[in-house]
């Protein structure tokens, strides 16, 4: 049993990391509502998004990376497999997002 626990320690480590990140996110969200956060973080924009949004996105990507790399074992697979899986997602999804959001901003301009 103790041996098993030892070999599972990384799972629990990742669990605590994910939990910690989520807690930070939720805390930031609650602080935002209650107005505890610095004004600049909530109201100032950077490349079309608020600074706080950027923080949320970065935290989310870290969480996603932990899930994919450790829970889904992708970090332990061959390098070629890892990139085969990740590259399409890394290229296509941001590209689609970029196109559609540029289009959205144009809509907004035209309708204004």
């Amino acid at each position, binding site marked *: 049993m103790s041996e098993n626990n030892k070999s599972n320690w990384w799972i629990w480590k990742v669990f605590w990391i994910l939990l910690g990140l989520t807690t930070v996110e939720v805390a930031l969200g609650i602080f935002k509502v209650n107005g505890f956060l610095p004004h600049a973080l909530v109201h100032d924009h950077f490349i079309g998004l608020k600074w706080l949004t950027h923080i949320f996105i970065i935290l989310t990507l870290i969480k996603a990376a932990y899930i994919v790399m450790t829970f889904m074992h992708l970090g332990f697979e061959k390098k070629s497999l890892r990139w085969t899986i990740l590259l*399409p997602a890394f290229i296509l999804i941001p590209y689609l997002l970029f196109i559609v959001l*540029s*289009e959205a901003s*144009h809509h907004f301009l035209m309708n204004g």
Partner: protein
Amino acid sequence: MSDHHHKETFITKYIFSQDHKMIAKQFLLTGIFMALVGMLMSAMFRVQLANPGETSILYNLMPSNWMDPDTGALLQDKYLALVTMHGTILVFWVLTAGLSGTFANFLIPLQIGARDMASGFINMLSYWFFFAATVVLIYSIYVPSGPASAGWTIYPPLSAEASYIEGSGLGMTLWLVSITLFIVGSLLGGLNYIVTILNLRTKGMSMKRLPLTIWALFVTAILGVLSFPVLLSCGLLLVFDRSFGTSFYLSDLIIGGEAAHHIGGSPILFEHLFWFLGHPEVYIILLPALGMTSEVISVNTRKPIFGYQAMVLSLLAIGFLSFIVWGHHMFMTGMNPFLGSVFAFTTLLIAIPSAIKVFNYLTTLWRGNIRFTPAMLFAIAMVSTFITGGLTGLILGNAPLDINVHDTYFVVGHFHIVMGLSAIYGMLAGVYHWFPKMYGRMMNKNLGYLHFWGTFICAYGVFFPMHFLGLAGLPRRYYANPVDMGQITDINDIITFFALAGAVIQFIFVFNFFYSIFRGSPASKNPWKANTLEWTTPVERIHGNWPGDLPEVHRWAYDYSKPGAEEDYIPQNVPLKEGESEH
């Protein structure tokens, strides 16, 4: 383990078969059937365009409520239904499923040296999803309000609201159901193709020795797997808009004189999601044809394909670029002009790998010893249409030039030549070339020649003049020509004449095909003297492909007329001689 002759019943052998060869034939037969349906539809609307408002014996093939009860002429919205169904059937059913479904299934295990697909069961499921989709689509033609009529691109709001056009009622719902089944089927198929090519290659069959057909089918499968899911999302959102009153794509609509509740959606979003699939789809259609053409040209010129590596790289480049150019279908939708520039730039880049492919084909022909089988003729015709149609793409892909030819007959001419004809020629070349392997018999050669020359002449007669219609400013999907363009009537008559002649000539092929299945002269094991592995299998087609051990691969697939060899071909499973270099 060499014995793969299970007791097979009729049902497990011919209907719910898990043998990739049988599934391929099922795809092929369904594809040919749908091709005939699509072709008859085009014959009908060509007749309408030549004699607008008059009746024709052809219309009797359709339900009687498609015709005006007094004059017997085709009704206007049913003309649009014909156009829509023709597009849907040809793009998805014939050129996606019929072409890559057939040849991916048939060739992948045979050419890489595998006993079957990675999962025969999933492969079987993929066909039966496709079959169900076919049934639903055909059924939708016969519902009283008619099938989907909003064009094969089903842009909302026209496709969302039955009061805008009759076909957007039940017919459109069935279309969406059908396409969903179709997507599930092709995803299952695509996943299978990819893992089979990755994991099941026989010993020695490295990626660098893969025949170009397999490379093309591999890239095709990847394109399908990455782009079809977005069409699924796109379609699901449309289903919700149509049936549950959401506003993903709809806004500011007036229905029956009253303001509707929709607000906030945008048809432009639909167009982006749709063309995210739609453009890769063009290459899903074209790439297998390019791959098979490479194979057929190499075999019949008795020469290695010129620039194997460049051919593979250009396939990959086309595959990648196809994902980032979709906006060129949308230059005139009022999209952000900045994005127009982005898409014009990426679109024209595609011309580079395409040019490489054309020049490599031409160099392959140079100093060859060409054997004109019907397959070879179709392959040459494919190169010809790829040139003719591809070049006009330089006009359509360049945003400012698109302003005046967008949605005109110029586009119709362009895409019918570059993706319609090229892909059909590739498919026919494939059928003529691999028929002996599929059925153990030869197709009749002289009928093949007859079919080829008829098709080649008529097809150019149909689609080349369309460019002039477009340059004269005639929009596509018009029920009749605008009368103040009376001068173009002659061109339209010529097109219709060639279209009908071409349609009749296709029956030579159908006849030849079915006749040869049962009565054709028996084929030898390797009738074309080709190198690839499928020609090392016995003429009797067994489940498991090779009796005994799988062949081992020692060389690439293109050792034709290699200096120092006795024969002008060396199959892939022949070991290298001492001191022989690999290429």
